[in-house]
């Protein structure tokens, strides 16, 4: 029983990191992104490949994988900066699908649909994290790290600048700040942290394939941010916790087994819709004017 709870905690933690990182660029800096599944996937694949092919120590692997994810953030951010909101969202959507297509088809690197099996468990200074409870601790450590880093950046002058950019870009550039640079910075930070979640997932499942990183994942992550409350720190965490919790909890409700799985999906979607209707600002979001 405890094992199942630990499993749920691990998944909540991974998605909390994802939601927090998306919220950083979307909720605070106001940069539209529907391609978080891409950074998630790239982090996961990079981590998996590094540990499978190069066998580097975990800390280095994590740093490298996240940097690669951050690099991808740079790649998508740079050319799309000047686009207006509509184009930007669709461009990031396209990027998300392109990354998925590349992961599925670049066989020599990713083995495409065959996926990467046998990803080793994590070992730091010969401490093996192969038990559920130790892995949960590891994940929670990274959640705390993410919250600490992002929260401190948000409260710093950088954070205030990003929020100002979100409200009025033109004014900010009028006072001489390089808006483009800061937007790219926010994206890179966001994708870097999304990479952390990817690496953690890869080592947890020990097998990844492109199907885990389809574009719909981006909407689910966005859903967690929106549902939990954009522009707050606790919001995305609450969103991740609830949206991971609800499907798992629904497994426990006894339903006629013929329809059970479908009814669960119906109930999940209805719950999301109803809660959003009652609180469009999200669970912990600030009320709208």
């Amino acid at each position, binding site marked *: 029983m405890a094992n199942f709870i630990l499993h749920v905690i691990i998944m909540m933690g991974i998605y909390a990191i994802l939601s927090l990182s998306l919220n950083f660029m979307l909720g605070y800096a106001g940069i539209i992104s529907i391609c978080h599944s891409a950074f998630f996937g790239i982090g996961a694949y990079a981590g998996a490949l590094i540990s499978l092919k190069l066998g580097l120590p975990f800390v280095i692997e994590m740093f490298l994988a996240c940097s690669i994810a951050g690099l991808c953030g740079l790649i998508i951010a740079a050319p799309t900066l000047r686009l207006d909101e509509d184009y930007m969202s669709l461009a990031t959507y396209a990027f998300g699908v392109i990354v998925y297509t590349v992961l599925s088809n670049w066989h020599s690197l990713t083995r495409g649909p065959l996926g990467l099996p046998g990803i080793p468990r994590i070992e730091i200074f010969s401490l093996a994290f192969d038990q559920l409870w130790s892995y949960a601790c590891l994940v929670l450590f990274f959640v705390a790290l993410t919250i600490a880093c992002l929260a401190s950046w948000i409260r710093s002058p950088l954070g205030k600048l990003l929020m100002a950019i979100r409200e009025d870009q033109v004014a900010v550039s009028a006072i001489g700040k390089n808006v483009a640079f800061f937007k790219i910075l926010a994206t890179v930070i966001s994708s870097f942290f999304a990479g952390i979640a990817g690496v953690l997932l890869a080592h947890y499942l020990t097998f990844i394939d492109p199907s885990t990183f389809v574009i719909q994942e981006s909407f689910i992550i966005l859903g967690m941010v929106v549902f939990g409350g954009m522009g707050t720190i606790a919001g995305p965490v609450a969103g991740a916790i609830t949206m991971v919790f609800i499907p798992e909890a629904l497994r426990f409700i006894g339903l006629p087994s013929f329809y059970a799985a479908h009814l669960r999906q119906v109930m999940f979607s209805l719950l999301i*819709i109803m809660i959003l209707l009652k609180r469009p600002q999200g669970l912990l979001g600030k009320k709208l004017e």
Partner: protein
Amino acid sequence: MYEPLKLNQGLGFGGGKIVELYMFFQLIINGLVAGSIYALTAFGFTIVYGTMRFFNLAHGSAYMIGAYLTYAFLTKLGLGLPAAIACASVSTMLIMLAFDRVLFQPFRDRHAHGWVVAICSFAVGLLVEPILSLIFGTDILSIRQAETPIRYVFKGIMITRNQVVVLVASIILMILLSLFLKRTRFGKAMRATANDPEMADAIGINVNSVFRMSMALGAVLAGAAGALVSLEIDMDPMMGHSALLKAIVASILGGIGNISGAMFGGFFLGIVENIGIWKIPSNWKDGISLAIMMGFIVLKPWVKHHR
């Protein structure tokens, strides 16, 4: 019963270049047929996005509902094919209007953030799939007949009767709708709202009815696209996803919010996909169209800037 097919048998051509040319035209035809469905779906998506700035992630569900209702009307109610398609399209419109009234409208009234409504529509998409599975089952359904299709061949280039129906019906629908948008008063009101909602409101246009009409039109087009496509392919509860993706890509290729552009975007997408995979390994098909789309998006402002 099976003889190996000799490519030049009965075509009266030599080999080489002429074969390539015949292939090229055949691919264009395939592309136009596929493209007509993309165009129809994209048209619907763009009407909604252009007028309401609403990223309707349930658009793929409307497409799916159109297909499934056609199946239901055809097999359970015994309607003729044209009637089934028409009824399915109209029913889809009514269903989406109901969703709009109950679910999306309240968000608009409260001036909620754009992404909140989008996520709500995503949840609607998540909702429709299991409901269809519960009603129709998860099996793959088909309304196509298993016998040999009627085909028209011209100089070796071939098109089936169903394909002609799809192509012609889509084009007619799109022409009708374009006329509606350009000529009628309501159509003009819609275009005004798309251009500048606040100004439209200020000059007395009932923005709410414009929004409702946009949702209705978007849904009826998606439903019609789904209904027509069911003539060509079999349906399952996951078919909405790729329909949505194509609609988005085609809309971008045509220019966001540019409704007639979306049509051309759809046809262009269909042709590019088919010609593209002629030379490039087929599994990169989605990647090709997306890369082109990215190119468009990124280069467009640059081009505008340097004009």
